């Protein structure tokens, strides 16, 4: 690559970073969701009493958060890239049942069931990715299609093989320990796996060069392709990542609850999208952050579980989440406008 630009007469670019803090903060996609999280934490801290603040209270929402969180992260990346994935709702029970049928019903080794389940997730992701990149059908529609397909096959095959819509599985001690255990008797080991996903995807989106491609893909697919981003491979990879993550959650669910149900997982579709949107990801793509998605997931889970610690009717929780979603979108829009209009005053006209 040629570098014909010579650096003549260029004033110093490095400037003191102070005085930019506010602008920098406003520019971050997670600013809004951080405020939201603090707000619900305070709210339930006050109204939820000591139960909410106790370790058991924290465990109740962290357990929920970890499962949604593992799915919300790749969904968030997909949304930043301008796509949606609804099929996760069917991949979770499909993966649970695959593991349960292979390792429980047929009594084969756990690793085989787990590998098959994760492979299934990757396969559905691959199918989604191929369909999205080879056709002009929106990913929303394609993944609704693959969701119903996966759901129907799961139900049909499970009934055919196992004779019922639920299959139980008793994992061996090692599998139980790494995937289905409770730390301190209350914190699901899934929380640690969530941390692994957060670190991995943070690296992918914010540190590795691939992250830049994801933003570019969501910003403008055609321009991204024109500047040499392998947009198709990237989309397929992201769909496979979300399929894999959904399968991972399916597997860890079956290890925790020791049984798999055909209709588990539907709630994850909307919940994961809500976590992502509350977390500041732009629905149309191109903007968002992993930290924001984590904040969004925590916010969602705190409201979801915190409501049980208050004297409020639990149904109010759904209302709060609905309102929260709208507030989140509005504040995130505001923050985004701030980020766009922000320009440094210092040295601006040198």
């Amino acid at each position: 690559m040629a570098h014909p630009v010579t650096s003549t007469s260029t004033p110093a670019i490095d400037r003191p970073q102070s005085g930019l803090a506010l602008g920098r903060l406003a520019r971050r996609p997670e600013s809004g969701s951080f405020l939201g999280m603090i707000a619900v934490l305070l709210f339930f801290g006050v109204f939820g009493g000591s139960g909410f603040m106790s370790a058991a209270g924290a465990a109740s929402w962290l357990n929920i958060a970890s499962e949604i969180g593992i799915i919300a992260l790749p969904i968030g990346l997909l949304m930043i890239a301008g796509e949606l994935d609804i099929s996760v709702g069917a991949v979770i029970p499909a993966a649970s049942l695959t593991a349960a049928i292979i390792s429980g019903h047929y009594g084969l080794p756990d690793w085989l069931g787990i590998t098959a389940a994760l492979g299934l997730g990757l396969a559905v992701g691959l199918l989604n990715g191929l369909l999205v990149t080879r056709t002009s059908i929106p990913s929303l529609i394609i993944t609704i299609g693959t969701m119903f397909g996966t759901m129907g096959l799961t139900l049909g095959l499970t009934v055919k093989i196992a004779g019922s819509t639920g299959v139980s599985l008793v994992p061996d001690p090692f599998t139980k320990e790494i995937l289905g255990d409770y730390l301190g008797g209350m914190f699901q080991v899934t929380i640690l796996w969530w941390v692994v996903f957060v670190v991995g995807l943070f690296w992918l989106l914010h540190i590795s060069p691939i992250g830049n491609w994801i933003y570019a893909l969501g910003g403008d697919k055609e321009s991204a392709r024109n500047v040499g981003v392998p947009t198709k491979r990237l989309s397929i990879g992201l769909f496979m990542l979300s399929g894999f993550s959904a399968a991972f959650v399916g597997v860890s669910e079956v290890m925790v609850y020791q049984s798999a149900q055909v209709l588990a997982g539907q709630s994850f579709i909307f919940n994961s999208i809500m976590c992502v949107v509350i977390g500041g990801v732009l629905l149309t793509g191109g903007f968002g952050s992993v930290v924001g998605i984590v904040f969004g997931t925590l916010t969602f889970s705190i409201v979801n579980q915190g409501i049980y610690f208050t004297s409020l009717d639990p149904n109010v929780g759904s209302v709060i989440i609905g309102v929260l979603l709208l507030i989140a979108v509005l504040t995130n829009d505001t923050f985004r406008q701030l980020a766009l209009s922000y320009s440094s005053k210092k040295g601006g006209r040198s």
Partner: protein
Amino acid sequence: MNDKPAILELKNVNKSFGPIDVLHDISLKVRAGEVLCLLGDNGAGKSTLIKTLAGVHKPTSGQILMDGQPVTFVGPSDAQGRGIATVHQFGGTFPLMSIGRSFFVGVEPTKGWGPFRIYDRKRANEIAVRAVRDFGITRIDDGDRLVGGLSGGERQSLAIARAVYFGARVLILDEPTAALGVKQASHVLRIVNEAKRRGLAVVFITHQVMHAMAVGDHFAVLIRGAIAADFRKGEKSREEITDLMAGGETMADLEAQVEGYMETHEGHPPSPQVLEVPAAH
């Protein structure tokens, strides 16, 4: 300047999509340090022509030559690799990305090795800011700013600076001034002149004759996919060019009609329905 060899040349290029012929027998030359203005109304085939130049479309027949050698572009990245850069109407097309990040999309500077290569934000920002400042846009000094926060002219300048930084020899500017105000547009025109001064071959697509005349050395008017006129600076007046673009004498006819109407109607202009504009053909 006339005797300089052309960097990029189209020879009798035709392009059709299925049964629809879009480009007819286009022959063009783009020389280093020269601005070729492609003028044409909407639907005249400008976009198809640009995309053919940029390697997005392959000509159905005819030849593309670079430095006198026939070439076939495998795709847009191939054309880019050979030094043909396209800048679209809205410049930076990633409004929600930072200046540094959008500058290096697809060719991110990294540090570290192997699978642990990480995006080098500091270096990306530094290079991006310096490149655009060298084009005289001193208002840009922070590579973390979002592209969407820049003015239209600044975005265009950033995109042009980017193309030049990555070694572009031919710069295709697709309606760079169309969405801009007067001041911003003059900004961009200055940058076009700067690119020309640096020896780039510029293809400037526009339907604003004034902008074309401000920077152009060579003009080609495209009508219905064919080159209707091909002339050099100073050979035609603004009115002549406008008429050509509108498809012959239509513009002059229209003006005469309006004037005639106003004379007979106490100076009021006619409503659009009153005018019967003859079809372009």
